[in-house]
């Protein structure tokens, strides 16, 4: 079933702190080259390339060639699909109230 495979790839791609950091970096500033991304990560260029490949396969990152450069863009479309499939239908309002409570309590404790 292709749909299930897409979802598996997506959650596997998200299940890694370095890949989530790459998504955050692109969210802060989209359209970066591999070298620009490497500056923010404490790992080899090859490791960053491998993480980016996983994100591209999951369609969370799209690449565009501009001259000799390859630019990486955050593609939020699969995240929107996760939102609709896994969050919106589970009573967002009550979850938000719980999330606010958690944040408030953790702030006072910290």
């Amino acid at each position, binding site marked *: 079933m292709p749909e299930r495979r*897409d979802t598996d790839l997506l959650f596997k791609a998200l299940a890694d702190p370095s890949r989530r950091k790459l998504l955050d970096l692109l969210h802060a500033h989209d359209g970066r080259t591999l070298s620009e991304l490497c500056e923010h990560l404490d790992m080899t260029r090859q490791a960053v390339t491998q993480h980016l490949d996983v994100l591209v396969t999951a369609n969370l990152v799209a690449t*565009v060639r501009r001259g000799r450069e390859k630019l990486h863009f955050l593609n*939020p*479309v699969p995240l*929107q*699909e996760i939102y*609709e499939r896994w969050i*919106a239908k589970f009573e*967002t309002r009550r979850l*938000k109230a719980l999330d606010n409570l958690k944040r408030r309590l953790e702030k006072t404790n910290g």
Partner: protein
Amino acid sequence: MARSTFVYVTYIRTTPEQLWSALTDKEFMKQYWFGSHCESEWTAGSPWKLVSGDGVALDAGEIVEADPPRRLVIRWRHQSKPELAVEGDSRCTMELEPTGTAVKLSITHTIEREPSKLIAAVSGGWPKVISNLKSLLETGSIALRDPYPVEKAG
């Protein structure tokens, strides 16, 4: 020159021809674009506009390139909000590429300024529109009826 761009990509299990007609058919578009639709002849040089459900022209411009069912380029300028309209022309490129059983739809929206309020504004809307389009073409029904369901529920 500074430039703001976003690139959104989705894979839709359909044919390029069907996807092209979904992107250009006025009545079909209303189903996934939250009641809005585009008006155009969809040939190079013809005027283009995006009209809301209550008849307000939100954006307008012209078709720069039309190569059905492969590539569509629109010169796109916002009309209704002054702070977005003042940014001038942007360019929206839609590319349709068959990949096995699906079609890869890439939407690139660019404006020659950084930062851009227009790009920030449209980038919030596109994922919802594209996700609805995918869902409508693949399953026959849309995922979201309302673009901002959480806010309105509150």
